């Protein structure tokens, strides 16, 4: 297994991260209060129970991972937070406001962005255009101004273009900015997906298996990006990931799901030693 | 009251004719997930073929019997429709396997135009007759209950019976035979069907041939009633609301939808028409379909459409 290899990679990445959130005296990250609180969420599709009574919280500036075997309901959980699915029971509190179901646009406006497991890129558009769509909420000029493309509209477009170019530099995809995303290799498409989410300047970033299908080098790059985002911008990150080495190394806290139920919650070390978690992964019959 | 019943029957008969065309739509959609806009053109093409063959065959083969001419023409037209089905699968469908619905719809739109032009080039563009010996005299029903009786066209009645027989046959085919099951599997998921060994291409040819056969029957009946003109091609546009109402995947839905629209059109034209200047038939079917679209897109009997995230 490449646990050791990825451990080294992730640690190395952390060491090259910027000062940002690191408290230089103790070397510990400044993790804030609870920013997202999921309470008793239950989600059903007809007879299938995707999530049963899930509760956990996420603190500001931390990296919180959600792990579990396939089909445990991890993506469904993110979909509930995002407003794509509406849970039958439970509520979600974001920055003090409680909702029984989230509206996608509202969630986006509140500063929550996400990437998708199966890539939800706009295949017909170039990389730049895809990432620019992430700026959509911030663009103020109306239809008429855009049609005429006079002073204010043009300047605004250029301003947002500058911001997007920073993201492109950060993700090192400059060479591909005009390419239609459908033509890019999978690893690069994943980066564009991340770039689009970053363009929203989110406070909370939901990452749904950002390293799926990547080789060791690509995972190294992606880990570095995630850590840099967390360090430089202080973005809270909720991460679904299967690679245990990466998860245990970069996460501050971990939630473990299995068959729609929560079976573990705590720091990586706590979770690593949890009997239920070990059983779930080794596959004892339920 | 008698007049109301007459209008009602008239509407039911027209509805049955719509239903026949709608049946072709449903068959192809059920089996391949393709909405075949060209069904109307296929009806026209089949009707033209039959009409012309019935005329030409006696000359080519040198016999007199009308009945023989009609039978041979029917058979020949069926062969032609099979060829059309095979060509469509080979040249068009095979290359568009994984495209989305809108692309396939537009492709069948192209096929419509092509068949339209081809039919008129091969068979001529004048108005032709199909004479299959349908009784043209009307008959009077319920003469004891209503004064003078209720006027019903015998031709329409026979057409309705033929349609009913066709529908029953098709429903049995889908539910009870192995091929029918294969067709339903293909409609559900192309790749899964392929992976259990169902030969996709052959299935499609079968489906389009069956649809072609239905088109032939529909064309025969319409053509016998109205004469074969190219307004028959706009028949597709009349039948489209029927499948929305009945549900794109439901054979009985096509019939019931057809009847509802046929009756609705006639009744609204007769009773509401005078208030709005007439011509309600132009839009009635479509506005009814629109209402269904907004509140119940799957129609009366169709399967619920689920969009996976």
């Amino acid at each position, binding site marked *: 297994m490449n646990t050791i290899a990825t451990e080294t990679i992730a640690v190395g990445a952390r060491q090259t991260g910027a000062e940002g959130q690191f408290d230089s005296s103790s070397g510990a990250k400044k993790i804030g209060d609870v920013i997202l609180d999921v309470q008793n969420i239950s989600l059903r599709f007809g007879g299938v129970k995707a999530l049963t009574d899930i509760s956990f919280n996420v603190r500001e500036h931390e990296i919180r991972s959600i792990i579990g075997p396939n089909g445990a309901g991890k993506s469904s959980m993110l979909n509930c937070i995002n*407003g794509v699915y509406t849970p039958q029971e439970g509520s979600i509190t974001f920055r003090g406001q409680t909702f029984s179901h989230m509206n*996608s646009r509202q*969630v*986006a406006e509140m500063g929550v962005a*996400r990437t*998708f497991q199966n890539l*939800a*890129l*706009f295949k*017909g*558009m170039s990389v730049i255009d895809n990432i620019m*769509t*992430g700026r*959509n*909420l911030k*663009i103020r000029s109306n*239809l008429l101004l*855009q049609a*005429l*493309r006079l002073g204010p*509209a*043009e300047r605004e*477009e*250029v301003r947002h273009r500058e911001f997007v170019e920073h993201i492109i530099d950060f993700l090192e995809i400059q060479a591909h900015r005009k390419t239609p995303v459908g033509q890019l290799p999978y690893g690069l498409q994943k980066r564009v997906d991340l770039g*689009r989410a970053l363009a*929203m300047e989110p406070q909370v970033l939901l990452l749904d298996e950002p390293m799926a299908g990547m080789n060791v080098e690509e995972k190294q790059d992606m880990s570095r990006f995630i850590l840099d985002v967390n360090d430089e911008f202080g973005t809270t990150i909720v991460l679904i990931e299967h690679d245990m080495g990466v998860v245990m190394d970069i996460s501050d806290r971990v939630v473990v799901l299995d068959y729609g139920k929560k079976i573990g919650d705590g720091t990586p070390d706590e979770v690593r030693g949890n009997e239920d978690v070990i059983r779930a992964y080794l596959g004892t019959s339920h | 009251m008698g007049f109301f019943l007459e209008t009602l029957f008239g509407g039911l008969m027209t509805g049955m004719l719509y239903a026949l065309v709608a049946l072709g739509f449903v068959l192809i959609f059920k089996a391949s997930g393709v*909405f075949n806009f060209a069904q109307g053109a296929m009806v026209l093409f089949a009707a033209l073929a039959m009409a012309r063959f019935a005329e030409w065959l006696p000359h080519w083969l040198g016999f007199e019997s009308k009945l023989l001419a009609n039978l041979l023409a029917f058979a020949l037209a069926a062969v032609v429709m099979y060829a059309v089905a095979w060509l469509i699968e080979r040249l*068009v469908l095979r290359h*568009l396997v994984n*495209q*989305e*619905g*809108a692309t396939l*719809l*537009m*492709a069948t*739109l*192209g*096929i419509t*135009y092509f068949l*339209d*032009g*081809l039919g*008129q*080039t091969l068979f001529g563009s004048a108005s032709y007759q199909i004479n299959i010996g349908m009784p043209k005299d009307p008959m009077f029903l319920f003469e004891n209950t209503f004064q003078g009786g209720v006027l019903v066209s015998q031709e329409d009645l026979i057409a309705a019976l033929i349609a009913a027989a066709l529908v029953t046959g098709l429903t049995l085919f889908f539910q009870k035979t192995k091929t029918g099951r294969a067709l339903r599997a293909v409609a559900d998921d192309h790749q899964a069907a392929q992976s259990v060994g169902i030969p996709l291409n052959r299935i499609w040819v079968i489906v389009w041939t069956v649809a072609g056969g239905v088109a032939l029957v529909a064309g025969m009946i319409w053509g016998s009633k109205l004469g074969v003109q190219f307004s028959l091609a706009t028949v597709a*546009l009349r039948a*489209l*609301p029927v499948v*929305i109402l009945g549900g794109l995947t439901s054979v009985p839905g096509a019939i019931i939808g057809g009847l509802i629209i046929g009756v609705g059109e006639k009744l609204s034209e007769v009773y509401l028409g005078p208030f709005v*200047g007439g*011509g*309600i038939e*132009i*839009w009635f079917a*479509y506005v009814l*379909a*629109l209402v269904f*679209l*907004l509140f119940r*897109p799957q129609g009366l009997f169709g399967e619920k459409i689920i969009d996976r995230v």
Partner: protein
Amino acid sequence: MFYRENGQFKTSYQADQQIFPIAQDRWAVLLLVGLAFVAVPLLASEYLFLSVLIPFLIMAMAAIGVNILVGYCGQISLGSGAFMAVGAYAAYNMYARIPDMQMLVAVLTGGAFAALVGIVFGIPSLRVRGLYLAVATLAAQFVCDWAFLRISWFTNHSTSGSVSVSNLHVLGLPVDTPAQKYLFCLSLLVVFGLLAKNLVRSAVGREWMAIRDMDVAAAVIGIRPMYAKLSAFAVSSFIVGVAGALWGFVNLGSWEPAAFSVDRSFQLLFMVIIGGLGSILGSILGAAFIIVLPIVLNLLLPWLGSLFGLEVSIAAVEHTQVMIFGALIVWFLIVEPHGLAKLWSVGKQKLRIWPFPH
């Protein structure tokens, strides 16, 4: 290639984002437009104006409108004929009923009414898509067909069912001779083409394309599907409505509802498919293709037939034309879904590296 495109580096994002970033392209287009304005009126015959150029210009504008809805926003529409009709009849009513009404104002108002109708018939797009949306737009088509046929107020209670306009002026200048009509339509096409191009390359255009490509993901980014779809319907119908008004006023002079029937809707859809979905240039190319093809066939086929000793009747030419359209639609959808516009850019790419194959 005819000219070297390298070495034109941009130092500002504004320069990078222009419609024609390569200088030679800019010059070529300006030259083309200049020729269109100056040389063509001097050289073209009346037949060319009336049968080819004016219909082409108006249809190109309508095709741009339809492409915005179908190509950029991915909402299939078979009701474009109806929106043209609304534009034409609304403009007519403004022009005929209000004294001293300027034609340009009437035409633009016609577009505004068409936009309103477009928004109303675009509401189903919030619930359904694909075939079902096509049916909804067909409902619009047939309701409008009926309204302009049977509700006599729309035709100013004309006994014949058709309406006509005359004595057209724009800003005091007469729009009477074919050359003047041509220049008027050309000016409007250039203006609307520019506005459309600006829209599709800005935030609104990206919203439309996002909805087309994946509307669930679009919602998660914060794009409102309702606003995006209805704005597409509104802008598209506005342009199509203006084109409809022009078609009636300038091209036909007098018209009946049949001029905007469902066949017109299909014709526009074909222009957009053949020209290229999601391309302003494609709309123009598609319109040119569809307007010019029948004329070419009318000349070509009888000549071809005479080579083989066959007499080719007018009906036969028409049937062949219909067959060729159908075959082309299918061919383009299979081989090059992005139509003539894509073929053009692929051709340019090949020319760039010619004589090397890649």
